[in-house]
């Protein structure tokens, strides 16, 4: 369904991603992992058409998305990393805006928006401005907006951030059902336990390059490590967190000599 071919993008000469290629099939949930600054957001921005690659292309059902961006956008649902919303709109008004921009009929918007808000426990807040929402509530509005038009490809960038335990569980169940519906899902997260549970495949990216692309179980088996977190640490060569924490406590203890 979705195929990335040799994507390269640099900013002011500094490469953000190099030669990024992978495929996502219908009904597949692909975890896209990497430390901060690895190139995940750049890749996602290219897929959503917000950024042009310097090289390479993105194919959707064999067609370059740039050839018919409108058609591609109409099947794409996207939940960005940061819950950037128009804060002065209410949750319902935001969903209505998105629905209208997507060309849905008023009746359809009304039905879907109110039901989604109710299911996401936002019914009582639907007329309140988003500025008064908590982080989790904003995240739920974003999830509702991404599902409004029944997309075929879904990109979730840190969707669990700010969500409470119940909403997070609901989201995990939702992912499974979306995959069963034949949707292609790209799932970006730092919560590796969840990735391990819900993703069919995991792609690890660091310093702009793809380091691994395999099912989680296969990765742990291949590297003879107990879980995905250990695999991830090994692959991206994370810093010695214990030593850093010790140093932070030392800084905290510095006394004022006045």
């Amino acid at each position: 369904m979705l195929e990335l071919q040799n994507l390269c993008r640099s900013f002011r000469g500094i490469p953000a991603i190099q030669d990024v290629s992978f495929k996502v099939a219908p009904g597949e949930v692909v975890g896209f992992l990497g430390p901060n600054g690895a190139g995940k957001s750049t890749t996602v921005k290219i897929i959503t058409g917000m950024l042009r690659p310097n090289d390479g292309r993105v194919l959707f059902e064999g067609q370059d998305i740039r050839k018919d961006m409108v058609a591609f956008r109409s099947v794409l649902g996207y939940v960005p990393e940061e819950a950037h919303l128009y804060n002065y709109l209410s949750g319902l008004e935001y969903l209505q805006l998105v629905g209208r921009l997507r060309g849905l009929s008023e009746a359809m918007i009304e039905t879907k928006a109110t039901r989604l808000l109710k299911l996401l426990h936002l019914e009582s807040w639907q007329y309140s401005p988003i500025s008064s929402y908590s982080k989790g509530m904003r995240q739920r509005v974003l999830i509702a907006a991404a599902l409004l038009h029944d997309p075929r490809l879904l990109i979730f960038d840190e969707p669990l951030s700010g969500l409470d335990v119940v909403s997070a569980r609901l989201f995990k169940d939702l992912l499974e059902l979306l995959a069963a519906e034949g949707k292609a899902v790209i799932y970006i997260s730092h919560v590796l336990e969840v990735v391990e549970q819900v993703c069919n495949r995991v792609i690890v990216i660091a310093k702009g390059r793809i380091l691994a692309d395999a099912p989680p179980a296969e990765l742990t088996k291949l590297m003879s490590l107990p879980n995905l977190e250990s695999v991830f640490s090994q692959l991206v060569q994370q810093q010695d967190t214990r030593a850093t924490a010790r140093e932070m406590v030392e800084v905290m203890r510095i006394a004022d000599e006045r």
Partner: protein
Amino acid sequence: MHKLIERLAGYLPLDFRVLYRQFLLRVIDLESLSIQADVVRFLGQFAGVLIMISLISAIRAFVSTIAPPTTAAGWLNLEWGTEQSAIRTMMLVVGLLAVISWDSTFPDRKDVMVLSPLPVAPHTILFAKVCASGVLVGLAILALNFASGSAWSLILGSRRGGLGFFQFCAAWWLTMIAASAFLYCSVLTVQGFTALLFPRRVFLRLSAILQLAAFGLFLGTYFVQPSFTNPAEMAACEDHWILASSPPYWYFALFNQLNGSLPSQLRWLAIRAWTGLLLAVFGAASSLLLCYLHTMTKSVEEPDLVPGAGGFHWTPSFSNSLQTAIALFSIRSLTRSRQHRVAFAFYLAFVFAIALSLLRSELTADSPHPVTLEIILPTFSMMFFAVAGLRNVFALPISLTANWVLRTTQLRPTEEYVAATRRTLLLLAVAPVWLLSFALSFRFGPVQHVAVHLAVLALLGWILVELCLIGFYKVAFTCSYLPGKANIQLQFWGFVIALIAFVVPCAQLEESALHDSMKSAFMLTFLFASSCALFFFNRYLARSAVIYFEELPDEGITTLGLNA
């Protein structure tokens, strides 16, 4: 001097100094101006404008000595005109400061949440905020009067001989301080008691409306208020209520009382000034104290998440879903963003002032007026201000980070986005001005001329909208702008030149064509044809255009000239 100030400041508590500095940088309403890190620069520019006004007034004072008035009445006219103008300008400046520093003297939720866990006493916060606001007003008084006050005291005060200069100078400064204190404290009183009387949610909505109302009131008063050139004229003023309800006249009377030149029949105005000042200061002090005692506790007690009220939620529908989305997005952005509301209110204040002056002249007239430049020019100007103002406000971005949703849902051609923006401009600028003009034309006649004028006005509005849309391939409030590209001074003068070059000839042409039905028909046909031509031209251009969300700098190649 610098060391002395530093030493004196050293006696103040550290927490007060830290907070005072913070509040001074935040005293202007960042939400309404959206300048964030440029506060210091903004204040510098603002002071620069005031100093310039002061210098121009001082030059006027010295120029008046080249051909001085020859009679006592002439001198009196000059003195009264100068004093009234100076007080009005001072009150306008302080009024505008009160608008841009709206609510900043009162504790907001952020202050409470950030400062409550820290070892800072509420009274320190109160004093720091009051001092920051006071310094802002003080700087404005100083910048606006340092040159003009000295120059006019020298020219007008010295004429009295002896201590005349000093008396005039003292009267000038004391009046300016009193008038400024009255106005600023009155605004604080209104804000404070509104905050105390209403629940926070209602207050926030009401406060935004009050801010706009105050803005319109200050600008409207400045432009509409008549000037009196001698005591007889003022005492004989038929509309006694104008004097009684206009603080600038009270402080004008106070000025003359302090200067020792107040006619006895105007003493009541000076009494009003003193009473007003006392009430305003008392009101501001008590409302501030009460707010700091109650609001800070209330802010902490207020739940973080409160479900919204059901209420009435009507969403009008326009021709298609995209037009509905863009029009409603624009209307909601404009009405709910303080920055955009204030910016648009600046233009609307001119419309309001013109409409008021038109209404006043109509109400005082005995018989119906013929349709002359007296109505044509003001209505054309209103249309120009409303359309150009809204177009300028559309260019101010509201939340750039949230634009991703518009980018990822861009499923229709640019042409449809342009059509949606056109509809919004027609709905928010042209229609209200046209309806206002229609209402204001009730005293004009004959009916045919009024009908032709209103038709011309509608077509002119449409033409202005089409002109505004040329090259405007963006959704209102969503496009970033390059720093330095929005050259405000150039824009302002461009605006004035366009107003004179476009509106005045149009008004003159209409006036000359009104009395001839053939000419009127030709004028209407021509305007309609022009509107249609511009409409199709914009549609044609939009077909090959791309909606953009970022202004990008022109790519340029710099030649180093190393071959030479």
